[in-house]
């Protein structure tokens, strides 16, 4: 069965298509990969020519005019901020400047305090198609859902081009196009958060999406305590309750947002996920597993 591996968004990615001959599959996969790369180029905060970099460069200065796609993503960011009581905040990336996971040192409290004052989606100004960050050094980034958005876009594109069986996997966030050509579901393993060579669980899915957030993407240990890259925008401190949260949903972007919000909610995550009505698998800091099937 044709599978196309590529690297994008700093992750290992794969497009897998079943039920097509290899030539058709290769052509379709190229479309999907091009779509992922388009989104990466347009929104990467590492590229000075990206939309996000342009908005950030004008922080404290001019409003930047945005196109319809960017405005839709900003609308989505707004909805996430509302739905999470402010926990999911696309302006919180500045906190990373205080956390140097390579150095293995806790940040200076005063520096963290300064940076926390730069966080606040509610302060971002929107007028029509114009967006402005009100303070110098403020920044936004779509890192919290860009990969999932790209997986959804690429999968929808493949489906619209006639693909029926396959999935798009961008660094562990998957959107299924459809089950295998013979109707069987795909079996997807869930990464063991503490043992990179092991799987913690597996799930069979034939449609929808699966996304996982974890504390093992980037982290450091100081005095035996783990500090991961998922930061509470209010305290500026890493979350510590969950090793990983995987969520199933109809769209990768929604599943990914729910898993990130669950990480940020810490001990309140299970109540949130249960009430959300999604299937999930969460592994807490002691390694205990919580799950809900649908």
């Amino acid at each position, binding site marked *: 069965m044709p599978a196309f591996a590529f*690297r994008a968004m700093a992750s290992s990615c794969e497009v897998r298509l079943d039920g097509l001959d*290899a030539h058709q599959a290769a052509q379709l996969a190229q479309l999907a990969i091009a779509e992922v790369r388009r989104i990466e180029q347009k929104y990467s905060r590492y590229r000075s020519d990206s939309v996000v970099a342009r908005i950030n460069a004008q922080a404290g200065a001019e409003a930047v005019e945005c196109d319809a796609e960017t405005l839709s993503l900003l609308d989505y960011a707004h909805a996430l901020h509302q739905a999470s009581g402010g926990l999911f905040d696309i302006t919180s990336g500045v906190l990373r400047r205080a956390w140097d996971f390579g150095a293995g040192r806790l940040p200076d409290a005063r520096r963290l305090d300064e940076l926390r004052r730069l966080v606040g989606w509610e302060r971002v100004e929107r007028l029509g198609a114009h967006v402005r960050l009100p303070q110098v050094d403020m920044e936004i980034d779509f890192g919290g859902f860009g990969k999932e958005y790209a997986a959804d876009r690429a999968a929808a594109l493949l489906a*619209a081009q006639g693909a029926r069986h396959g999935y798009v996997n961008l660094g562990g966030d998957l959107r299924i196009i459809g089950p295998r050509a013979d*109707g069987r579901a795909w079996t*997807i393993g869930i990464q063991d958060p503490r043992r990179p060579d092991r799987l913690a669980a597996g799930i*069979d899915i034939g449609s929808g999406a699966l996304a996982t957030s974890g504390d093992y993407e980037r982290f450091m240990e100081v005095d035996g305590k783990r500090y991961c890259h998922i930061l509470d925008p209010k305290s500026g401190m890493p979350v510590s309750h969950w090793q990983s949260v995987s969520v199933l949903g109809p769209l990768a972007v929604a599943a990914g947002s729910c898993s990130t919000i669950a990480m940020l909610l810490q001990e309140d995550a299970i109540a949130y996920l249960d009430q959300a009505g999604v299937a999930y698998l969460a592994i807490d800091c002691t390694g205990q597993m919580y799950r809900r099937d649908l």
Partner: protein
Amino acid sequence: MTHPKHPTGAQAILAAALLLPGVAVQAENAPEHASMSVRYLDYRQSQPGLDLKVHAPALEVEVPLAAGAWSVAGTLTADDVSGASPRYHTAVSGASHMHDERKAGTLAATRYFERASVSVSAAYSTEHDYISRALGVTGSLSSPDNNTTWSFGVGGSDDRIDPVNHIVVGETRQSVNVMAGITQVLTPRDIGQLTLTATHGHGYFSDPYKLFDTRPRERNQYTLLARWNHHHEALGGTSRVSYRYYGDSFGVRAHTFGGEYVQPLASGWSVTPSARIYTQRAARFYFDPGADPDAFPDAVSSGAPGYASPDQRLSGFGAVTLGLKVARQLGPDWLVDLKVEHYRQRGSWRLFGDGSPGLAPLSASIVQLGLTRQW
């Protein structure tokens, strides 16, 4: 920390996500002939210790790739070994490992001529544990009467692997592949197609992140695909048969025989019985992890001392799929269909030899009811 109130949190997130452009399945370019279907799928799978039932209603929007069922087949990429057992995993969901230094780029260009096309593609990507470069050219050419289409392609790739676990350092892998195919209108009632692909690769083929995975440093792969569509004048039906052979120097040999027959009946009814048989010989160095994923491989009994892999795609097994579809056209625009398929897979069903004993038998039934509107 604060306790946010989120009475409709997740629903609000999904509703907001659905407003994002292009994330839900939809036809983005209005096609000449499109169709929309509502399907209800009932899927039952059984395997010792693992039963699964799925009821899935689905809405599909279908956009045919091209008018006419045939397209030129070929491949630019190495053909993967199909035949996974759901006891093992085909992909891993996890938080990705982020790296701050990275470069990637692809370039592809296709030039279309009156009866020919040429496509050139190049790809490059690099990261701290991986560098990959690939280059490929494909072309197609049709005869003046359009009864014959030839296609051909060549490609190559060059990868460098430096896994973070330092199992190996500075490993590389190179491959070249060639493809040739012909599609021929044989008679007004017959179309045949033949495609051959060969790939030669050498270098590091093992999975550095898998325990006990040591594969040969050289791999040759061959694929032959033959298809024949025939229209039966007297019955008004169409048969489609296909055969695919796959072989590689790891010792995997696979045959796929497929056939279906579409018989239109009176009053807009049609029936389509179908059957597919798949059989695969295991790679010489495949070992069965069995029920215990920690089982230590017995490299000696695997028949190729020094080499070993538990990858299920390299196992030996056979599978049979039988299906029947009944459809009724209601007027020019509406189609109702009911499809029943049964799939069975066994290690012992391998044809022409023994399969892998450690694979759990699997069977699955699919019942699908669909309503399609065409326009």
